[in-house]
């Protein structure tokens, strides 16, 4: 099952000015009862987005009409907490293709990349400037260039290189996923099992 290919993207940003955003905020446990990967976007950041009566909370950025786009920008240690891949599914289902932060929790990063959601780690100072720019000019566009590994704020001359493991980069560019790779190497795994008394 290939993932969606990623090359370059130009988009406005949604700035989520919060640190240590945990998976219970991204998607609360009570919404994990589905047996499908779809439909979690509605529940994304549920308790921040909606009040007790189910009305939109005006003070939450995703409910602010000025901020739209496929790039979510958040404070450090994004995605900490549980291993639920539902967090990545919810972000993708809502329509984001990129999450930017100064650091990500390990499992979240893996889950995101395994689903074609690009996580971009930028230095804290760059992130702070980015937040300020978006806040004062919400229509500012950014360009994510995966082949060149560049994150650029358009019109402002602000550019930063980002890192991504070469293997994962290839997967995203070509739309491959790890499962295809592993299944195609099961002969090698079987051979190794025999040599290592694992059978």
């Amino acid at each position, binding site marked *: 099952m290939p993932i969606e290919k990623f090359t370059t993207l130009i988009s406005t940003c949604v700035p989520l000015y919060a640190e240590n955003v945990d998976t219970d905020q991204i998607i609360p446990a009570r919404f994990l009862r589905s*047996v499908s990967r779809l439909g979690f976007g509605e529940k994304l950041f549920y308790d921040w987005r909606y009040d007790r009566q189910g009305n939109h909370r005006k003070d939450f950025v995703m409910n602010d009409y000025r901020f739209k786009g496929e790039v979510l920008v958040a404070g450090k240690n994004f995605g900490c907490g549980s291993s639920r891949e539902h967090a990545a599914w919810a972000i993708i289902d809502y329509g984001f293709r990129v999450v930017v932060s100064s650091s990500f929790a390990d499992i979240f990063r893996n*889950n995101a990349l395994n689903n074609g959601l690009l996580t971009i780690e930028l230095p804290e100072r760059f992130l702070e400037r980015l937040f300020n720019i978006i806040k004062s000019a919400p229509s500012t566009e950014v360009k994510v260039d995966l082949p060149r590994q560049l994150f650029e704020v358009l019109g402002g001359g602000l550019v930063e290189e980002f890192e991504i493991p070469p293997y994962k980069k290839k997967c995203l560019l070509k739309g491959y996923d790890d499962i295809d790779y592993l299944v195609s190497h099961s002969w090698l*795994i079987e051979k190794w099992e025999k040599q290592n008394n694992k059978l």
Partner: protein
Amino acid sequence: MALNDKTIFDKIWDAHIVHTIPSGPSILYIDRHYIHEVTSPQAFEGLKKRGVSVFRPGRTFAVADHNVPTRHRHLSLSDESGREQIEMLGENCQRHGIKLFSLDHPQNGIVHVTGPELGITLPGMTVVCGDSHTSTHGALGSIAFGIGTSEVEMVLASQALLQHKPRQMRINVEGELQEGVTAKDLMLHIISTVSTECAAGYFVEYTGPGISKLTMDSRMTVCNMSIEMGARGGLVAPDNVTFDYVKGKEYAPSGEDWDRALDRWEKLPTDAGAFFDRELSFDARKVEPMITYGTNPAMAVETGGMIPEIDRMEPALRAAHDKALRYMGFSPGEKVKGKKVDYVFLGSCTNGRIEDLRAFASLVKGRKKAEGVTVWIVPGSMQVRRQACDEGVAKILEDAGFEMRYPGCSACLAMNEDKIPRGKYAVATSNRNFEGRQGPGARTMLAGPLTAAAAAITGKITDPRELQQNQL
């Protein structure tokens, strides 16, 4: 530093590498794979779509635990989508020949309690599960870490994962914990010192007398909480405490196999000159009973301490603290001791083992539950429950006015009906105090089993040692 010296992590890791992609990740072989009802259905669905079968069904073990009821288990599940997940787990296991500890199985329990207590997890293994607290199994001297559902699918399809080797950290704990202080307090102390992200990208080995003197149950608490400082996992090298624990367990090797296994396991501990990317040191003697006051596990203080003044903090932390305190209904500079408690939850894969129930019972013995406090005692497994009944722990609890329930994750993540109502304060022995973790609006204060017991008896945040002294 000798070049050939290896950490226990290196030894286990290297022994499980099938192949390394040039300048890419490695294929890491997985010995044990645990699955549960919440993070596995989509993985099985993925396999079906690909037309791939389970590669090594004998290496996967399934448990229903996350959304199961902890009362009236003989009745069918009232919640439809929860029931669907549990039924689907049953169907998937049956179709693929996977061993399942279902709701009515005598060994049912939380996956991270059941696996070690049956000897399914053993020293030197690689262990994964679609749950972040898989790190618990590291206490056996294995590499154990949580994975996402795509990775669950990978392991089902190939018994392997693509992984980059993480960096390694050693946390050395000098001295021994004082009477009345538990492994949970040690971890809250460490996390509140280093922050919730300090170990991101690292795998942690815990060493020193403060660790080796701990029982296996306590070591599991330690490894369990590694996640709360951002680590991929934590482990403790196996020693005689480990071997005594494992010996005779249902799935552990026996006879000549045992001797051979022991030979291998004794070679696992880290060599004297092995390299760690980062080393930290703590003193167990300085640890006091701890409790959290905020909305992440690093926001913890001693039970006798004060909620920090925001203006004394680094500016970067202030906004988060302010938000957390507003959520919790607390003010800076307040004492935590004496705060009113509405709920107490003893359970979870952090503190739901027999030792935790014993600790709780030791404090409540001869006392009564405080009025107005609702207490949920949820053993980590059916085995823990049986043991508590056989040992008389259950009787002590009952006499003090507490009811022991059936095992499950329960109020740790509140996927079943065990939810803390909005605005209420709960002292919980679980591992996360995130906003809404125990139900929308719930206010969680994490603590060890003794502090939980003290709260259950007094209805307030209390230093458990005060009650222990009165007991003498």
